[in-house]
């Protein structure tokens, strides 16, 4: 037994020596991961501002000026009111130079000051940039509602407080400040961990095969099990260290809380890592070179990503894909990560996911171990 441990230890040391001369990948996984988290945290936490919008004011009245000033105050738009005709608007929309255009009709002021009038405002949106268009629509709708409410109150001779109770009150649980960083960074963290292990594990055998050193490793007295364990330990150690550093970053830089039990989270992370390691080793052993292994990792990684609820909610997918999601480890792990970190959930709430993850870890672990051993022998 001790001999075995000593031999595995020797292998682990060999792998780390390799890493020292080939430190790019682990370094990148840390720097790249940190960069990606910063980029996405930065991109999603900024309000969308400065969207180019044309305003064709055919009224040029006190009411229309009031509307334009209110639009400016939303800071969503970069307004250009120097337009005279529809042709300019159509041209600029077609060239993608503006995200939206607002047309104020000539009777805008007249309709609004009348006791019973209704003014028509026309909003043109450039749907070719859907995110900008959606933000422009929301900002304009909110503004129009607010202006309209003021006029309604005046017409009915009511005070501003009379209708104040008609907005539903909103409570966001587990994320009171509605911070986007809380949505996105745990998902990004999960993504980084998955790709780190997959890439790292995929390299192990494909690299030795490509360089022709796998044969020489196989003729040594190491058993195939020892080789697999010796190759896996550095992958797990480096990826886990990577995960801890990124978790700390998410916690301190983006104020993502860890409300539940940290030891439980780390333990379940390890189980998840073993399952992904198994998949990575299989990719590694079926690829004849690194190029193939990398491309396979991309495809497997993105398929997994689909089931994490990051890009699209699993509940909305067809029934068949919902079933598939149940056998994807990252689907359960993301639920656990969000549950423990953000909701402060414990085993009594998370047990279905935990159970599924443990079973998947065991099944994928043993199947892949067998597969890789058979392939090595």
């Amino acid at each position, binding site marked *: 037994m001790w001999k075995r441990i000593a031999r595995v230890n020797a292998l682990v040391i060999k792998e780390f020596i390799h890493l020292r001369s080939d430190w790019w990948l682990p370094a990148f996984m840390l720097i790249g991961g940190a*960069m990606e988290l910063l980029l996405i945290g930065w991109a999603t936490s900024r309000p969308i501002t400065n969207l180019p919008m044309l305003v064709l004011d055919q009224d040029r009245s006190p009411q229309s000026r009031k509307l334009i000033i209110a639009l400016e105050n939303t800071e969503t738009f970069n307004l250009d009111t120097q337009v005279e005709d529809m042709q300019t608007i159509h041209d600029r929309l077609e060239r993608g130079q503006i995200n939206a255009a607002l047309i104020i009709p000539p009777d805008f002021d007249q309709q609004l000051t009348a006791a019973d009038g*209704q003014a028509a405002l026309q909003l043109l949106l450039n749907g070719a940039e859907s995110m900008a*268009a959606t933000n422009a629509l929301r900002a304009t709708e909110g503004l129009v509602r607010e202006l*309209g409410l003021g006029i309604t109150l005046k017409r009915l001779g009511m005070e501003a407080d009379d209708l104040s109770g008609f907005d539903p009150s909103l409570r966001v649980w587990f994320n009171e400040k509605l911070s986007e960083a809380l949505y996105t960074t745990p998902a990004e963290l999960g993504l980084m961990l998955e790709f780190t292990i997959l890439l790292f594990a995929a390299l192990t055998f494909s690299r030795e095969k490509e360089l022709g050193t796998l044969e020489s490793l196989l003729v040594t007295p190491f058993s195939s099990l020892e080789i697999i364990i010796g190759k896996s330990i550095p992958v797990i150690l480096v990826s886990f260290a990577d995960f801890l550093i990124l978790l700390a970053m998410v916690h301190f830089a983006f104020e993502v809380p860890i409300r539940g039990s940290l030891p439980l989270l780390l333990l379940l992370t390890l189980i998840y890592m073993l399952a992904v390691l198994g998949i990575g080793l299989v990719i590694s052993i079926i*690829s004849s070179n690194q190029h193939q292994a990398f491309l396979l990792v991309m495809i497997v990684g993105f398929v997994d*990503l689909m089931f994490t609820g990051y890009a699209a*909610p699993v509940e909305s997918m067809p029934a068949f894909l919902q079933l598939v999601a149940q056998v994807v480890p990252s689907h359960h792990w993301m639920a656990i990560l969000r549950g423990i970190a953000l909701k402060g959930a414990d085993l009594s*709430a998370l047990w*279905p996911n935990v159970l599924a993850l443990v079973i998947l870890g065991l099944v994928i672990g043993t199947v892949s171990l067998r597969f890789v051993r058979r392939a090595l022998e």
Partner: protein
Amino acid sequence: MSLRHLLAVTRKEILHIFRDRMTLFLVFLAPALLLFIMAYALSVEIQHIPVAVLDYDRSAVSRSFIQQITAGEDLELHSQVNSIHEINNLLMRGEIKAALVIGPSFGRDLQAMRGIPIQIIIDGTEPQSGGFAMEHISRRAEEFINQSLSTQIEAMGGSSNSIRPIDLRVRTWYNPGLEPKVDLVPGLLSIVLGFPALSVALTISHEREHGTLEQLMATPISRPELLLGKMIPYILVGMVNAILLPVIAIMAFDIPFNGSFLLYFMLTCIFIFAVLSMGIIIGVFMPTQPAALALSFLLIFFPGFFLTGIFFPIAAMPEIVRMESLALPGTHYAIITRGTFLTGVGLDVLWPYGVMLFILGWVFVAIAALFFRKKLG
């Protein structure tokens, strides 16, 4: 530069790809497969989001309110619960993504125009479904309240115009439903066409890793011949995908194509040249394949997602980032795909972007060649 030399390098590279069927398959089909996966995730229509209702009023009005909220495919009534505690449990376990609480005086307050005691609770940890549920519930609630208010105001002798003094008429060009997939799927083309560039980077660093680059340098083949010769097979891969990708987008995801296909194809070829040149720089700089993979992520894929204006509008970015995004081929190509797929504009609008891509491509090749000379000269 001699054509014979160029073709010799190209032939060698093609032999490399064709030697192994799996490599061939992955190199050719990775862009299409990844587009398919990502486009599917983006086009999943959010629906069937599970919601719980806590009705303290239990009146006819509150029942019809619940019915209106849960009508349609968007939200699904998970259950009617009896206490906040139950809502907490369901949210914790992730069984519901949102809940609606109706206060005991709902019916009476609405009748007396005193406001409405309702509360929407959402799960703030779910990236998509929480926000979606919130938007839908509050929109339907507003409709319901407006209906009931206008019947009452009409009963008091007012007209329905007085409650809606401004009528906002929205027209969205190119993407009437404002569906994200319509512009994101064409946008993703620039990401997945980066995969041939990754392959170029990998094959060049492969030669360095194996020490075969020195041997190649000892032959009469010049350095530019070597770089371009390695690029040609992947230009072919890119061109095949340039045809395959829009077919997938149009057939499988219903993305419109309103422009000229020929124009699209020509400009896409220029983009492929530009992005492959980036791959060449990476291959020349990086000594091993894992290192090349790492740098490809940092230079091609992360910025491709976040800085090219596919997801986040460039207009909303700070000045410095906007300058940086101009140096990325993906930024110009995003305008080209939008123009050819959605707005259907011609060469008169798109030529500056094609020229920019062409210039960027040659600048990248020049940088690679210069560095290559220094490194091995």
